[in-house]
């Protein structure tokens, strides 16, 4: 027993020594670090997208850098950012110093990305954010271009555009309700989980809804990790709302959809419900999440352009499930980084940045272009709009997630009407029809 204890101590000491002496492998490859919450679906998306990209590029011989070809080597880093922002920064620093990566893609939680961004900028490595939508991340590029110019947003477009898209979808559904059910004035209940990104959205919604000829029935702010929303749902029902505008980025999206479905609350749900974007939503709500509509980037049946279907099919075949938007690490590598390298013939970050910020190129989700702010300073933030990135509106219909927006959508009076291939009509939940149809 005594020897066992001493052995334990010696083993611990040995491990400590080994930690710091583990060598980094030198290589003649392009090293791309993929950082994300690898234990969760978002991180898995990061990694899967990158793996698919690396396999595709390496299969055709690698990246042409000047007159030689270099293969891509991926380095996986678990940021654990949902649980611990410090872990994320440690992982990022490790990627840049021990693993000596040339590029970094990934990141999800805005709080963590802000911290990770600082580190990547210190080391002057290009970091493409694939998951965080906070505008501050790109505002830093404009405010301090020399320090932050190595950062680009890969996906999604920033939360201001998110708001705009949501409102458009809400207005579309509101119009459908009004027309099919003969409701004179549609009442909207705003339910937004209490979080930084929803605060301005709630204010904006309160102002926007009356402008669309609808009425705000009330505002509810449950905790993002609430598991029981019966109280909110009872109150919403009492308020007589026809539509519930949801803003959920965390787990509360599941119990809300489930309980609203189980109780057959007579109101349709539209807005953002991140859990409803995932395949597991149907099981997680025990099938009661039917007719829930949410913003999403990809849908199995919708083709935004000619790159969409090959991407979706390859991903599905390789990983057995449809991609989430974090798998846009694929686009970031295949259509973003690699062509820039081949165009400039170098891995030099400064020269690559100059090329990357002016390029516009097609990706499976649309077209990427980078915008500037009102003063003309580069933001390295994604352009929104028809022809660029609009994302989709998807709805769960009987166990399947289908695309319902953009469906004959005009961004403005003179803009062309847009309907992506594979979009189907929106369906109103039967119990809502039953309640209101006169």
């Amino acid at each position, binding site marked *: 027993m005594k020897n066992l204890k*001493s052995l334990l101590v010696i083993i611990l000491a040995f491990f*400590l020594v080994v930690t*710091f002496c583990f060598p980094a492998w030198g290589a003649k490859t392009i090293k791309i670090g993929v950082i994300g919450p690898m234990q969760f679906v978002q991180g898995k998306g990061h990694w899967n997208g990158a793996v698919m990209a690396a396999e595709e590029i390496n299969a055709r011989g690698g990246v042409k850098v000047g007159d030689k070809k270099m293969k891509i080597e991926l380095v996986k880093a678990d940021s654990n950012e949902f649980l611990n*922002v410090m872990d994320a920064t440690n992982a990022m620093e490790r990627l840049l110093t021990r693993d000596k990566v040339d590029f970094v893609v990934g990141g999800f939680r805005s*709080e963590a990305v802000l911290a990770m961004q600082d580190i990547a900028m210190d080391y002057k490595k290009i970091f493409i954010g694939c998951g965080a939508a906070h505008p501050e991340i790109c505002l830093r590029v404009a405010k301090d271009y020399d320090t932050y110019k190595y950062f680009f947003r890969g996906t999604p477009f920033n939360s201001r555009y998110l708001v705009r898209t949501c409102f458009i979808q809400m207005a579309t559904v509101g119009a459908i309700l009004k027309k099919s059910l003969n409701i004179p004035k549609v009442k909207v209940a705003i339910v937004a989980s209490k979080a*930084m990104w929803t605060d301005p959205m709630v204010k904006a919604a309160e102002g926007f809804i009356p402008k669309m000829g609808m009425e705000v029935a009330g505002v509810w702010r449950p905790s993002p990790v609430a598991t029981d929303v019966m109280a909110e749902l009872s109150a919403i029902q009492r308020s007589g709302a026809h539509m519930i505008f949801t803003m959920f980025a965390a787990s509360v999206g599941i119990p809300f959809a489930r309980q609203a479905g189980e109780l057959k609350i007579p109101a349709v749900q539209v807005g953002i419900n991140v859990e409803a974007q995932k395949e597991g939503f149907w099981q997680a709500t025990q099938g009661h999440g039917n007719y829930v509509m949410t913003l999403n980037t990809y849908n199995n049946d919708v083709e935004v352009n000619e790159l969409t279907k090959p991407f979706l099919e390859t991903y599905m075949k390789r990983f057995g499930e449809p991609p989430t938007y974090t798998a846009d690490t694929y686009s970031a590598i295949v259509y973003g980084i690699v062509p820039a390298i081949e165009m400039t013939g170098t891995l030099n970050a400064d020269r690559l940045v100059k090329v990357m910020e002016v390029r516009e190129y097609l990706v499976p989700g649309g077209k990427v272009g980078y915008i500037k702010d009102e003063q003309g300073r580069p933001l390295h933030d994604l352009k929104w709009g028809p022809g660029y990135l609009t994302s989709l509106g998807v709805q769960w219909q009987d166990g399947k997630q289908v695309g319902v927006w953009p469906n004959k959508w005009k961004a403005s009076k003179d803009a062309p009407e847009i309907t992506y291939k594979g979009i189907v009509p929106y369906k109103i939940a039967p119990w809502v029809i039953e309640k209101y149809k006169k």
Partner: protein
Amino acid sequence: MDLIRYYIRKFFKLLKTEVFVLPSRMIVLLFIIGLLVLPLITNDPYLLRILILASIFAIFAASWDLLSGFTGQMNFGHALFFGVGAYGAALLNLHLDLPPWGSIPLGALGAVVAGLIIGIPCLRLRGTYLALTTLSFPIILMGIVFAIPEVTGGELGISGLDRIVRSRVGQYYITVVVMVVMVVAMWKITDSNIGIIFHAIREDEVAVRASGINTTRYKLMAFCLSGFFAGMAGGLYAHFMRIAGPSTLEVSMSFQVVIWAVFGGVVTIWGPVGAVFILFPLLEFFRFWPEFRMLLFAIVILLILLFMPQGLLPWIRDKIENECPRCKIRNVATRKTCRICATSMH
């Protein structure tokens, strides 16, 4: 000239009689020297980063021991002080443009006030009640943080803080020196009259009161001192990470510090410090197996507790040193007779 030579001779004599005789003190000395000399050997920023964070958490863990180990006030919400220190320093730095050497101590003073605020309700509580009540304070503060996002930055926290100094090595030295100073200060406190009273309050508060000592004052002092040091750690953390977020107030942060302190040995100050420097790099090391990381961590804790419930470091110390049966002075285990009173050690 002579005066300087005198002091140098005195210093070496002190080393010879007090430090070199005991292996545990030698280890501490070597450890401090090692920390200070490390940047001369290697320039690896990742390694320096791990050690900077370990130093910050060492201050944090030692401050917990001051309160909960010595004074016996089991504090399960120590993250409160850490968070108040971090947010305090962040707000001062951002809004008043105070440089880090100003904002961190002032943030720590904010944590002292927090210590008073939670110390007062906790005066009448004992044992588990105290532990569970203190658990709730950081949670309440987190609720407030989310309720006023315009001030606190909500779940994004406050970002864009100044660095302590520009270079990583500079940050390292400042943090390590501050850690050594703080830990020595805490150790000196426990070695003083106040420290004796803390010990006594833990053992038997009624007797202390019966001796005429105002335990309320000393308990509040314990809360405030502990809060100050933990707040310093929080401020250093905020300026190193350049972001102060609600993760500084999480329950897991409170639990972590309890784990470190108990693992390393309570009622010592060096126990938690050593534990942090062992466990924190170990957790980073476990990055090799990212899925098993926390699991291995938990298993290590459970196993160590099973075999060494007093803590790892006291157990190690007991293996290499013995106490003389007569004069109670510590001796190296290999000695047969005590170094002071020459009695046989068996």
